[in-house]
């Protein structure tokens, strides 16, 4: 019995979320033979990293198509490998690319696909719990094996190294059609980010409808600047055109994971909380002590952000003696 995990690579190894998907997969079928599919260049490092995470064999699809990201070609390589290995379950990380590739595999095989699973109790059909609404709601679902196609939601299991031997490496050249080769990244446009990016910031200060206007963000920007953090906002704010969508925290915006999230004048709709639930701590500043964000916050200040936020900035300056 085998399982197959489609892994994403980083410059120096394998993406952390793919290692989490491996841990999830290993827990599904103890004793299963764990195979991994990687595309691009083969190498010893790949064998060591994946071996240390329980993989017995790495299949490296080599093709000039993989010089840049080519999602349909990756899916075709996976389908070719699935045909040879007949795995009971095929997994990938629930990243943009992981979900995309497994959906393409599902379309090619005409099989069901369960995206962003958080748990599985195994069985046949495979019983999974998956995320809906960006994780604000869960669904228990079943899908047939051989193969069941699933992605693993980020950060629901930890990567767990084992004392494994380096994995065996097999390279293969997938047969790709012109159409599969044509769908590829042909250009990369770099974006200039001023200061720290929202996704990576240690501190995020966000404003919601309570800011009242684009000008209302001046106090938010000031506090974020003092803390070396990034400015965020709620969906209501971007829909009103007050801030660009790149500032939006939420299910359909950016998912953040700062040490502290300071949410000012934000009520805490589920679609917003889906974007900030990775924050280690949440401080809510809101006039309404009953706002739903209070149920998810660690700290609260009841008051008008237009008074509280400048006072915090002033207190911070005073404490620093500046």
């Amino acid at each position: 019995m085998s399982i197959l995990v489609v892994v994403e690579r980083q410059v120096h190894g394998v993406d952390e979320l793919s290692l989490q998907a491996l841990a999830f997969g290993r827990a599904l079928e103890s004793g299963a033979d764990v195979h991994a599919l990687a595309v691009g260049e083969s190498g010893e490092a790949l064998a060591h990293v994946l071996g240390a995470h329980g993989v017995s064999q790495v299949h490296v699809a080599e093709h000039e198509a993989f010089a840049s990201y080519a999602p349909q070609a990756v899916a075709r390589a996976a389908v070719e490998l699935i045909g040879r290995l007949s795995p009971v379950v095929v997994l990938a990380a629930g990243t943009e690319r992981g979900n995309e590739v497994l959906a393409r595999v599902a379309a090619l095989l005409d099989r069901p696909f369960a995206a962003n699973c958080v748990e599985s109790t195994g069985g046949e059909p495979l019983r999974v719990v998956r995320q809906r609404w960006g994780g604000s709601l869960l669904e228990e679902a079943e899908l047939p094996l051989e193969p069941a196609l699933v992605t693993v939601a980020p950060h629901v299991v930890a990567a767990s190294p084992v004392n494994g031997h380096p994995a065996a490496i097999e390279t293969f050249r997938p047969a790709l059609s012109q159409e599969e080769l044509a769908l590829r990244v042909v250009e990369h446009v770099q974006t200039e980010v001023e200061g720290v990016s929202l996704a990576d910031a240690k501190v995020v200060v966000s404003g919601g409808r309570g800011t009242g206007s684009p000008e209302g963000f001046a106090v938010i920007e000031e506090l974020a600047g003092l803390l070396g953090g990034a400015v965020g906002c709620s969906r209501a704010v971007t829909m009103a055109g007050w801030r660009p969508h790149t500032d939006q925290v939420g299910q359909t915006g950016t998912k953040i994971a700062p040490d502290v999230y300071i949410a000012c004048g934000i009520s805490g709709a589920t679609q917003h909380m889906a974007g900030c639930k990775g924050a280690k701590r949440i401080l809510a500043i809101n006039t309404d002590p009953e706002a739903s964000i209070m149920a998810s916050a660690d700290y609260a200040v009841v008051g008008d952000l237009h008074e509280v936020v400048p006072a915090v900035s002033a207190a911070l300056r005073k404490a620093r003696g500046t």
Partner: protein
Amino acid sequence: MRILVCVKRVPMTGGRIVLTGDAQEIDTAHLGFTISPHEECGVEEAVRLVEAHGGDSVVLTLGPPEAEEQLRDALALGIERAIHLVTGEEWDGQATAEAITEAIRSEEAASGRFDLVFFGNESADAGGFQVGIRVAQALERPCATGLKGIAVEGSDVRCEQEVPGGRDVYRLALPAVVTVKEGLNLPHYPSVPAKLRAQRQPVETVTPTPREARLRKVRLLVPESSGKRAEVLGAGAGAAERVVEVLREIGVA
């Protein structure tokens, strides 16, 4: 150019999700509904493309009778025709894609091929990440996903996808399928006359053959809340010094 936009009706959930007694659905008795956010941007983009390049636009949904409301929202925003695949309960991604593929084939046989078919990258509610990709595969058309930039250039479409640090660009030959994300554009609000006009426009209905779900929903679960209660640091500006203390404890100030 001919453009089709596929949309899904989803509830606006607010602060807390409550389930029906059988845990099969969200209790929507007190909720409003909307077009799923990514697809709202698809509607907006289709309207803009037809304004810029000429042609015609169609909106399609698969959903309950009430989803007619979302089709009329799209008509009010400037889409010209609406097709409703009327179903009962929620369909899985595979069944949804099959029914939409059939509807596209029959619409194209009658009125000509769509140059572009829009989907949301994933629906806000089910989050399946698959319907657009499945339809593209069935129609044998190229598909780029998660797009935040689209430009029709001759017989190609330039597609921009947001990735860490920038944007990846794909170039697809038309006809093509694209799945888009919120942030692609800022949807406009319909005018009152446009809304009234949309109420009078016909909506074509089709009843697709029911299919068995292959990703079978057993039940929905609301994740357990942490049960924590926020520590109130104070009220108004007077809380500022305590806030700074806490930020220092966390190690960010």
